[in-house]
């Protein structure tokens, strides 16, 4: 089956942080709200949670010239091509959909939490009660039906759009031109390209909790690309050598001549 890869583009220069997306996500995915407190910020819940798959991060920032900006960043699953979460998932609960996005099948999830720490974007969240991990699946059910994800549909300003990967990358760079280059396209240059991309008004390093150079963690690569195969290779090789030893040298017999000698 030929894959049509979709990319959701988050244009932070058009986001007004109305948080329609945050609510639409919960509504479509039937996620409950939890009682929160005001911790001195508009950002609430304070972070992604098992019941909060996307949220707007509010950040007050002044650049070197002292120009003040209030930055809004919609956080959530980036839907990596080279997805660390899928790499570490033992159950197949996390998988690549035909749209290139990272789907999640909670029925398969065994709550091992490997994806939680593997994710370079710190996205998956574990629910102690259900023993399952939750995250955005870019509304796979809606995509399959030819519908936009709930967040995109809810966005009043056009900050959220979705389309084929090629089209959205083009759109992103066109927008960058429109902004006279005062921005950064984020998402097309690492982890094989993410299926959620940003147009950021500032350098990525400025943003809270946004990795500048996200990648599948070295530990995951060592684990999955080296140790994992070598577990079988190692045990197999040793078993093979033992067999060879047995065939060539034979068993290590006890010296019969000494028996009963002393």
């Amino acid at each position, binding site marked *: 089956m030929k894959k049509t890869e979709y990319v959701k583009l988050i244009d932070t*220069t058009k986001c007004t942080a109305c948080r329609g997306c945050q609510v639409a996500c*919960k509504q479509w995915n039937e996620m409950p709200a939890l009682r929160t407190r005001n911790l*001195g*910020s508009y950002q*609430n819940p304070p972070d992604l949670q098992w019941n909060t798959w996307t949220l707007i991060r509010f950040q007050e920032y002044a650049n070197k010239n002292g120009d003040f900006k*209030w*930055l809004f960043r919609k956080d959530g699953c980036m839907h990596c091509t080279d997805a660390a979460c899928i790499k570490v998932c033992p159950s197949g609960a996390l998988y690549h959909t035909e749209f290139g996005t990272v789907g999640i099948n909670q029925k398969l999830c065994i709550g091992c939490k490997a994806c939680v720490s593997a994710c370079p974007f710190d996205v998956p969240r574990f629910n102690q009660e259900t023993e399952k991990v939750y995250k955005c699946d870019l509304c796979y059910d809606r995509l399959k039906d030819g519908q936009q994800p709930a967040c995109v549909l809810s966005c009043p300003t056009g900050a959220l759009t979705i389309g084929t990967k090629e089209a959205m990358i083009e759109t992103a760079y066109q927008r960058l031109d429109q902004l006279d280059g005062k921005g950064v396209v984020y998402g097309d240059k690492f982890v094989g390209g993410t299926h959620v991309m940003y147009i950021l008004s500032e350098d990525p390093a400025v943003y809270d909790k946004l990795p500048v150079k996200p990648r599948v963690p070295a530990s995951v690569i060592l684990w999955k690309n080296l140790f994992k195969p070598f577990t079988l290779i190692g045990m197999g090789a040793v078993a093979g050598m033992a067999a060879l030893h047995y065939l060539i040298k034979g068993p290590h017999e006890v010296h019969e001549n000494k028996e009963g000698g002393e």
Partner: protein
Amino acid sequence: MTNHYIDLKNSDVILIMGSNAAEHHPLAFKWILRAKENGARIIHVDPRYTRTSARCDYHVPIRSGTDIAFLGGMINYIINNKKYFRDYVDNYTNASFLVSPDFSFKNGLFSGYDAEKRTYNKDTWTFQMDANGIPLKDPSLQDPHCVFQHLKRHYARYTLDKVSSITGVSKENLLKVYEEYSATGAPDKAGTECYALGWTHHTSGSQNIRTMAIIQLLLGNMGIAGGGINALRGEPNVQGSTDHCILYGNLPGYLKMPTASLDTLGRYLDKYTPKSNDPQSANYYQNYPNFFVSWLKSLYGDAATPENGFGYSWLPKMDDGKHYSQLHLFERMYKGGIRGLFAVGTDPAVSSPNSNKTRKALEKLDWLVCSNIFDNETASFWFGPGVNPKQVKTEVFLLPAAATMEKEGSQSNSGRWVQWKYKAATPPGDAISCGDIQIRMMDAIKTLYAKEGGPNAESILNLKWDYKDPQGNMDVLKVARQINGHWEADVEGVEKGGLVPTFGMLKSDGTTSCGNWIMSGSFGADGENKMTRRGKDDPTGLGLYPNWSFAWPVNRRIIYNRASCDINGKPYNPKRKLLEWTGEKWVGDVPDGPWPPMADKEKGKYPFIMKTDGVGSIFGPGMADGPFPEHYEPLEGPLDHNPLSGQLINPAIEIFSDESDQVHNASEKFPYVCTTYSCTEHWCSGALTRWQAWLLEMQPEAYVEIGEALARELDIANGSKVRVSSARGKTTCVAMVTRRFTPFTIEGRTVHQVGMPFNYGWLYPEDGGDSANILTTTVGDANTFCPEYKAFMVNITRL
């Protein structure tokens, strides 16, 4: 809005002042962003850096309540630097009109002030007339009595230094805004202003808007695509409820509520039907009798006859000189003068100013009927904080109402689009629509009156009340058709009962009946409900979408659109051609009347047809507090003097002087300026949204936003609990320490401003804090009595 939401995209410069558009009009804001994408400059002037500021080109912080000083400085700049659009000013405004020589302005007061009554006698606020009763003009604008020279002198006092010292805006910022905005005075440029409650919620609220209207007239920005003055109104029906007379002084369609001294229909119509002797002035309100009598016919039907003045005498009348605003109602209630209250879809215990007084006033009622989709602080006031239920005599009824989506009907947006919508769900339980509640209530009242009689019985018994369907429920289409209007007699080939296709056909002889003249035309003569239209064609390319819903008046999308053309009917800006005179007719938007442009001295008319003189009012004698806006300090502010005059506060505002209305001006006890607002996540008082868990999760409890500098001074940590107090009350909430509030330098000293959302209440959520209105002052605008929610003084202490 004189224009409409989509039209914002046609603008070259958008000044957002008195509005937090991105947070409170998130859907409309996309058109502002669209303008930005097209290269427009977006400027936000607001005390606080908000989500709106984040998306604008830049934000200019301003002290609450000093907008007139800021804009007055802009007028001064425009005149001094000749940035005004001369052709437009000459032809389409009253700049050249000569004002009465007796008119004066001295030390903050206009001529005719009565200090005792705190009102103006406006006899001198008039124009000099020629022998025919037409205003005298000086086209050179040089006559010292002409409006333009008065304007120039009035705002010459608003120098950069003075304005900066009052507003706290740096001179650089002032100049930056003035320069950029006044550049729209060019014929091919459009500048627009978006305001909302940040301008109206002041003792000089109406004058804030007036000041901008003057600027827009000077720059030729009225009546053009991408221009206008645009009140961004909230959730769909703020516009609709105003059109249908939510305000005490209005009848539907902004007709005037009669007062007791206007005891006959003749006297009433005489007073409110304007007269112009200028043959070129359309003076459209000369049709006032047609609108008003048709409305009386809609009210009393066949019982309204020419002989009985169409039932005029049955109408309730206001006492002369008395006001009936919410402030006055609660004042009277507080003093025991009101026995019963219907609070339909409102939560005044949270949303009215000076909550302690408001809540106390509710205890004086015998009965209170609330109608809402949830319980709220008003319906439950009797067990609120500090209230002993045993001592409250008020009997409270809470009627479950249907929510917006549970009923069919029309909704009007700010752009005057009246859009029909259908019922999406059935209301739960016993809930019925507010319309149905009223129908049933009136049925019962009529039955009682028929049986027992009572005061003013004719008014009740003669009321035409046939809005039910066969099942006995409200037939909303019947209501809508009555609002549109119909013939009451067979006239000119039209049968009695036929729908009136436009208000131009309304008559004052009783042959037409119309519930709201501005809505006339929402149905076609063929019965088509134009409010249901959903055509997406855009022939002008300007986003007028003439076949999408119905826009009052007569589907005109931009009001005063004839002013977008020169006196020969050629568009000032050919790139954004809103309207054009072909020599025979106007092409484009629905024009403000069919007459030729004003260069045609015989048949041509001036463009501002709703104004008696046919032109835009730079000199505006209709205002209660002066024909030119003047800066006054808020009722409660940080200054003990007005840097511009000897008048500290607006001389025409009514002062409420109960113990509960205490004000501490320039007091060390309450040193910080405070303003109130709502947030995107909650709607108005939060009475509907606080029960919505997803919304509550995002904005869970009351907070006060405090600048970093002040927080350091007071040693307040972000996220800690603080007490905010004013002379009227105190409340506890979370401190949100932010860089989005910065201190102002006012008259040489540092003034801090803080801000709080008002949309929380003690009822729900628990421990969510209470309304910021516990702190606000009981005072309103001099013209509208819209309460001052935006500027008052507080103190903050850490807990």
